[in-house]
């Protein structure tokens, strides 16, 4: 997961085009100000548009929750505070190497455990609600679970073709 640098980089470099327009109530001049266009990093634009401290707290909580599922929380709990900071600052400041130096440990096997214990996963519906379940990365016979097998496990009454 942490080895495919090319793909990691490609995803990291993804940008979202955003158009900012001044609120009508904020306009004090006769002339309408031009909209402001900017490309923002798709993985780390949140702190630009929302409270930074809230954003950081929510982010760290999500990483801890994911680590609970992946490694029973052992990676996050053995990291130091400065590692947690580096993770967040790397993301916030768009520093790929800084971020991945720490995140790599969260995406690897830990101790004797082979791979992840469970896969952190949320399936969102159109209305914004989401489903979260314990999903093992392996099938009962020890083979690696495919995306399709995982979906059928979550939605068993949905068989192929109907």
């Amino acid at each position: 997961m942490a080895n495919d640098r090319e793909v990691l980089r490609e995803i990291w470099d993804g940008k979202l085009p955003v158009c900012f327009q001044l609120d009508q109530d904020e306009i004090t001049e006769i002339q309408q100000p031009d909209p402001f266009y900017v490309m923002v990093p798709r993985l780390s634009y949140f702190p630009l548009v929302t409270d930074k401290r809230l954003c950081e707290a929510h982010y760290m909580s999500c990483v801890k929750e994911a680590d609970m599922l992946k490694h029973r929380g052992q990676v996050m709990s053995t990291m130091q505070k400065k590692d947690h900071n580096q993770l967040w600052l790397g993301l916030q400041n768009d520093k790929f190497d800084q971020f991945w130096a720490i995140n790599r440990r969260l995406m690897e096997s830990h101790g004797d455990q082979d791979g992840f214990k469970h896969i952190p996963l949320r399936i969102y519906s159109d209305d914004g609600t989401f489903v979260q379940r314990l999903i093992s990365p392996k099938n009962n016979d020890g083979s690696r679970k495919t995306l399709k097998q995982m979906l059928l496990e979550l939605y068993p009454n949905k068989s192929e073709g109907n």
Partner: protein
Amino acid sequence: MGDENPADDNISEVTNTLDNLNIDISQKESSEPFKSEKVKIDILLKATGNAPIMKKKKWAVDAEKPIGWIMEFVKKYLKLEPDEKLFLYVNQTFAPAPDQIVKNLYECFGTDGKLVLHYCKSQAWG
């Protein structure tokens, strides 16, 4: 390049499954994962730090209730002032988002048929 790529089949299969899933999710009734869903979920509320202890700790709550609702419930029960803060934690590790629902947390972190939530009035575990 013109050779048939065996991976293509897998990709289209996954796409089909995803398409089916879309249809499924829109029909809420039949799409709920796992059949024997509990309607009510037992939660155990444990005080930590300087938070007052609740006399009744075990509650059966609607599985679809969001964590934000439980936070409000605890605040009312403890008669906290409106400006007092309350933090809820799962596994004494992370603070779930207010819009996370009880069922999701129970499915992933429930033990012995219940979900244990620790509450406190100041940030305890980051």
